[in-house]
Structures are given as C-alpha cells and as structure tokens.
C-alpha cells in the first residue's frame, strides 16, 4: 500500500516540536503514536522507529513519531519521561487533527517511554492500546537484583569465566567488591530498612516508580502488548518485579494483555531479525482486535 510522509511542526505550550506523520492512502481508524525513550530522538536507535513507522504505514496504519520538548530537533529544556503529559497531549491532538479518519490509537514505547505511555494512557479514552517494550521500573534495589541474578549467574555458567579464573586473569578483588555492593543493594539490611521505615510516614507523595506504574496500570482499561528482550537488564528487572508481586501478576494475566518475548534480543533490538519480529508482532497485534 502507498503512504506519504509528512514533516510536522507541532506547537506545545511555548515550544515547537518536530515530528513525522506516516500516512497511508487508505488509512485504518486506529493509529500508532511512537514515543521516544532513552537518549534517542524520533528515528530511534539504528532507525528502528523510522523503519517501524514505514512498516505500519505500508499496511494501512497511520503513525506519528515526534521529539518531545528538549529532545532531538524540538525546542525547550530537556525533561524526563515523568514529565511528558503535555507533550503527549499536544502530539495526540495534532494526530487526530491531521488524520480525521482516526477514532482511537495505540501508544508504542520502549524503555522509559513505555513507562511514560502507561502513566498517560488512563487519562485519555482515545488510547485503546499500549505496546510496552522493556518497560523501565528502575529502582536501585531492583536493578541490583536483576544484575545479580542474570549477570553473575550467566557468568558462572559460562566456560570463559572459568577459563579466566584458572588462567589467573580473573580480578578477584574487583569482582568481590562489586558483588558485595550489589548484594547489599539487593538484600537491604537493617540500616536500609530502618531508613525506609522513617520515610514511610510521609510516603504518599513519594511512591516508588513501580508503585506508580502499578497504579496507572490498574486504572487503564485498554489492551496491552508487552514485548521483552531476553538479553536486557531493564526487561529482567521488570519481569522480576512482576514475579515478586501478586498484584502485577493479576493485572498482567488479564485477557486484554498479550506478551511477546524475544529471548536473544538486546535492549534496543539491534538486529534486523529482532527489529522485524517486533514490527510484525506489533502490526499483527494491532490488527487482531
């Protein structure tokens, strides 16, 4: 199917943002808004988002991807994924204006953009779907746990690790020190527990990132496709979080939630095969409901 690409300047508060609309000739009523995560701009690492948008547009799905304020070509001061409410709202309003045939949309986000998408989704009824890739739930403790389990375990099982140990090239001092630090974080001792108890008295406004995401998930009524990479600590940390919480498990076991795991893939899906699997997984899922 033919599609055109349109370069847009979008106004958001007192700044201009820049984006690309990939618009099929005959367009579906469900569009995709790609939100950028991590230190990237709208084309994504190794152009993943550009190529994904072209894939979706080629089968009739309109796509908007843009740089939020402070990122890429867009004006304004840099901001974090926790501060994207207005940017997402401005982009969505413009998307509906540019494509009158739209009735609902899916937000697609990788890493912290997945977290931002989840925060925003329950506030806008037009958002009927979320594609969340390797969602970012980073806390020091969770990161350490994921690191311990997946990094050290993988190394201990790796013959190369043992060859190094035997040939005397393994730096015990460094490794032990970093292991101790990691364990301290993963298994908070009395000191840490006492400190967090104190903070607990006034904790309402300072809910942790995983708690706020859980809250956002419980308010959201649309569908979700969760895509995870096997070779990615961010994804492992998220999956550990889910494993450790009945509430997360209950919400993700809902019939509206689908999952796709790429066991070999890294955080940014940096091979054509992985990128294509994500693109096809995304379009199949969007067209399945």
């Amino acid at each position, binding site marked *: 199917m033919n599609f055109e*690409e349109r*370069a*847009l300047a979008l106004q958001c508060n007192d700044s201009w943002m820049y984006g690309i609309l990939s618009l099929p000739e005959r367009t579906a009523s469900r569009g995709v808004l790609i939100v950028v995560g991590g230190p990237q701009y709208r084309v994504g690492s190794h152009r993943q988002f550009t190529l994904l948008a072209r894939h979706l547009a080629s089968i009739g799905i309109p796509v908007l991807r843009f740089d939020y304020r402070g990122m*890429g070509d867009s004006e304004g001061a840099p901001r974090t994924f926790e501060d994207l409410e207005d940017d997402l709202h401005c982009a969505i309003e413009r998307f509906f204006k540019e494509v009158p045939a739209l009735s609902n949309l899916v937000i697609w986000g990788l890493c912290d953009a997945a977290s931002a998408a989840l925060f925003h989704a329950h506030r806008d009824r037009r958002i009927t779907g979320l594609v969340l890739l390797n969602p970012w739930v980073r806390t020091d403790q969770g990161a350490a746990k994921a690191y311990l389990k997946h990094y050290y375990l993988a190394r201990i099982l790796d013959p*190369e690790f043992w060859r190094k140990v035997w040939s005397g*090239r393994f730096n015990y001092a460094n490794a032990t020190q970093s292991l101790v630090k990691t364990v301290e974080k993963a298994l908070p001792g009395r000191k840490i527990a006492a400190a967090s108890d104190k903070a607990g008295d006034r904790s309402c406004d300072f809910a942790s990132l995983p708690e706020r995401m859980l809250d956002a998930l419980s308010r959201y009524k649309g569908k979700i496709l969760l895509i995870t990479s096997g070779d990615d600590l961010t994804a492992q940390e998220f999956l550990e979080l889910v494993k450790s919480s009945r509430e997360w498990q209950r919400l993700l076991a809902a019939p509206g939630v689908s999952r796709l795991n790429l066991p070999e893939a890294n955080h940014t899906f940096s091979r054509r095969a992985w990128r294509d699997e994500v693109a096809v997984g995304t379009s199949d899922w969007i067209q399945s409901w």
Partner: protein
Amino acid sequence: MNSFFHVAPATPFFLKAELGERFCLFYAPPPGWEYRGVLIYVHPFGDEMNKSRRMAAMQARAFAAAGFGVLQIDLFGCGDSSGEFGNASWNIWKRDLAAAWSWLEDRVAAPISLWGLRLGALLALDFARSSENAIDRIILWQPVISGESFLTRFLRLRLANEILLGEAGTEKNTGTNAMRNALRAGNPLEVAGYELAPDMAAAIDILQAAELLVTRCPVHWFEVVAEPGRSMTAAGAKVVTAWKQNGVDLHLQLVPCLPFWATQEIAECPELVLATADIFAEQAR
C-alpha cells in the same frame, strides 16, 4: 539559554532527491532580518548522528538568532530520509549535499558555508574539494582523523557483542580483520543495528583527514578536549601541521566538553555553541 536563542520555528520538509526524498529542517533568521549567510549541516555516522541531534539543534538556533540560515539535511538512508542505510554510498551522500546546496542557492542570496561533525566533517571537506561552488567557510566539529581507525572502532561494536567482556587483544584484531575480509569479499555486515555495505566500508577505510586539503576558504576546526589545558591528540596535531604546511587557512580552537556524539546520555556543550557562533560575530566587527 533557550529563551535567548528562541526565534521563529524551523521549517521541516522533505526535499525530492535521487532515490526518493531527504528530510530537511531549515532554520531562518528572525522575520524581517536579512541573511548574513547560510550553512549546510553535515551530520555524523550511525548513532553518533542521533546522540548529537540536540547539539546540532542548539547550534542551528544560535546561528539563526545571529542572522544565519541553517539547512539540516538527513543523508540518504539516515534519519527520516528515504532508503535503507545498507544501500547508501559515499557518492550518494556527496550528491545529497549538492542537492542541499542548490536548494539554498535558489532561495537565499547569501554566502554558503559548510558545517560538519565527525565523519560529516570529512564528507563536507570531500564535497568542498569536488565542488566548484564558492564556499564561504568550513566549520569542522571534531573531524574524524582516519577513516580506517574510525571503521575499526565501529566494527568493534559488533565484536563487543560477540566476545564476552572483550578483553583478549589478539582476538579483537583478528575479529575486525575477519570482518574487513568479509566486506572485501562483497558481504554486507550488520553492526550495532546498521547494515554496512562493502562499498561504504571501503570508502570510509581510505579517508584521511590529512589528505582532504581545502585551501580556497577559511577552515575552522573545533576540537573537544576532556578538560581545559589539555592538548589535542597527536594524530590530530599531525593533520593540523600538514594542513598548515599545505596552505590551509586553518583556525583551530580547543573546547573542553563531554564528547556529546558518543555519551551514554544526551550531553550539551554550550561553550562549543558560543565559540562556533563567535566565528561570524568576529566577521561582523
């Protein structure tokens, strides 16, 4: 800083060119101002382009606020432009710059300069050497010194994924050699998400900054160093000497900053933006 440089919005558009379209972003001076000049921005290679996007935007806005137009163009197979990266070639990229040049020439009657970052700096120099157009000046940000070592470092991104911890020195060398051999045999190679075509690899491999002499306009070289007082690399200093001996009108400035094209998070270097904008401020005095 942002409000200081705030001007009319840049105009994003697609420019028709060989094999499709190129995404362009044009920054104009404030409404009612006369153009003091225009620049074409030549972006770096691979994800270095993504990482430096913010700095390119900051610099372009600073230029626009000072009365200069800036045309940013995504080369074929890069950014939002048509094509796959694996089908790009050095010569298509040079012709893209020619297309950008014509677009500017048709619209603005002001001297045109080139501004290139990293590998884009070498592309700008190579374009300047083969073009008959009158180039006002050339601005280089951290030019790549040797295409060969640049390519080796790029290939190592693939090795890093392949070799656990990547410490064995000999393995590294045979690794990139083996990759070069595969490329020479005509096989494309996927590196860090980019498909590297044999022709592209060969073109980069033979690039030497020292040989890309441009003597018909001033060349302003900005080199980022880790801290004040640090000197540039020995390899860079050699190029500076070679250029000066061969009559290049070279102006070198060292700016202490993070290497924003390669940092993990997006880094800004306002010092570099101010120093670069100053070139033209001096011209006006």
